[in-house]
């Protein structure tokens, strides 16, 4: 059974304090590792897709990396507007099914 585990559950950072979120996955034949951002009361919004170990993608203060067992979302010099829940999901094997982690709730304070 495919599994995706995110840590920590919650993270509180001061503005400018860089950190990383972890996503560990156990998926048969990974066909994509996805990161989403979810603001309170809204649906998740796509950030990145990674397909193979060693791949990296960046967007503003966020950088996602992938190894054979886990993915990291690095947040450099975060701002309060980066506060959100970050979700990781993996697609493995056949079809379109994604397995989601439970998310990391990030709070960035002034």
């Amino acid at each position, binding site marked *: 059974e495919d599994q995706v585990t995110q840590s920590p559950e919650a993270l509180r950072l001061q503005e400018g304090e860089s950190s990383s979120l972890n996503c560990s996955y156990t998926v048969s034949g990974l066909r994509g590792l*996805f990161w*989403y951002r979810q603001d309170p*009361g809204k*649906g998740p919004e796509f950030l990145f*897709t990674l397909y193979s170990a060693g791949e990296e993608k960046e967007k503003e203060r966020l950088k996602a990396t992938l190894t054979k067992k886990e993915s990291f979302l690095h947040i450099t010099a975060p701002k309060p507007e980066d506060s959100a829940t970050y979700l990781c999901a993996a697609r493995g094997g056949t*079809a*379109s099914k994604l397995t*989601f982690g439970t998310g990391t709730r990030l709070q960035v304070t002034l």
Partner: protein
Amino acid sequence: DVKVTQSSRYLVKRTGEKVFLECVQDMDHENMFWYRQDPGLGLRLIYFSYDVKMKEKGDIPEGYSVSREKKERFSLILESASTNQTSMYLCASSNPPGQGNEKLFFGSGTQLSVL
């Protein structure tokens, strides 16, 4: 701007009622999905559809059914609502895998309370 629109933002129903949640996408996507999101459990897939009139069970289909009569519309039906179906329901759409750009686009969600 591309959109996935869910018909209701908040819904309150009574136990035993039949509940319809509607979702419409304007991106001509083939795939559509229904998830529920609960604290500590994350997003769990209820049903998905690859094409009109096609449906596949997800991880937690019990107590739910779906309908996809048109490509742009995917409906989730709770035949007889129960209190354990109180949750945030999220609809999503995407292109099929292998065509690139296969990310999910989500609606804003429907918070359903069953009393």
